[in-house]
């Protein structure tokens, strides 16, 4: 078997297992109350981490680029209560425009 296939099978198996763990073992029942307090803060913590890394990082370096203009435009759209579809299109368009000029 080639290296590529070993990676495909190993990563696939591991990811399927990781994704299944919670839903298969704990599915359909309320979580213990000690865990609920933590889990309800997972969304804000993780979403904030995804925002900053995907808006600012390139690989392992923090390198602000045209995405920042896109995020600023998204911020304005959100402030004007635009629907998410508009926010996303505005962010992509502002980023693309900035890249075409810089």
């Amino acid at each position, binding site marked *: 078997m*080639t290296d590529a296939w*070993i990676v495909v099978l190993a990563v696939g198996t591991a990811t399927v297992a990781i994704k299944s763990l919670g839903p298969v073992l704990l599915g359909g029942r309320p979580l213990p109350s000690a865990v609920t307090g933590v889990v309800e803060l997972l*969304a804000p913590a993780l979403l904030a*981490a*995804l925002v900053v*890394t995907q808006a600012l990082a390139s690989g392992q370096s923090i390198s602000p680029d045209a995405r920042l203009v896109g995020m600023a435009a998204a911020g304005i759209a959100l402030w004007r209560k635009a629907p998410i579809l508009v926010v996303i299109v505005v962010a*992509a368009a502002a*980023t693309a425009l900035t890249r075409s000029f810089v």
Partner: protein
Amino acid sequence: MGGSSARRYRDGARAVAPLAVAVLGFGISFGLLARSAGMGWLAPIVMSATTFAGSAQFAAVSILGAGGTVAAAVAAAVLLNIRYGPIGVSVAPWLDGPAWWRFLRAQLVVDESWAVAAEGEGRFDPGILVGAGLLLYVSWVAGTAIGAFGGQALGDPKTLGLDAAFPALFLSLLLPQLRNRRTIVAAVLGGAIALALTPVAAAGVPIIAASAGCLIGLARK
């Protein structure tokens, strides 16, 4: 019940529809990258269909393409996907039914489907999750196939600014979550930890460490 869950599926698909274009574009990039890394056409498609996690797939294939070892490629990808452990726990209460059905729906959990299904205060809508996850899955696998067969339908997704679509979606979904002091503190901690660790830690670690920001939930309310 059936009718209403079909509507939730549709709502979920609609919620990520603007992202589906971006996911298709990055799927094409992934297919092209995998092909140029010498993986052929079938392995990248199988990888997208089974792993269904963009960042991990890009990491693994980049490492292989740069002549890295199998172990390094697998380790990087697994590290990037560890976050799906806690994410899976967070949606578990909302996925009911037989184990095989929970198992299948768990595969549709990616950052974006999870984020649009989050209703705040730890609640998730499983119909939204599945509808969004299915559309993203089809886009990702189809994009990979197009790229793996050498298509360049969209060119570089970055030229179209599609890489900014993802943080814009996450920002849109983050703001309504910030309802009280605890959620704001968790978000600030999560963002700060991820930012601080990005330059120094292996890819994947900053995001896992940032999710530890939710541990402030253990503090007294």
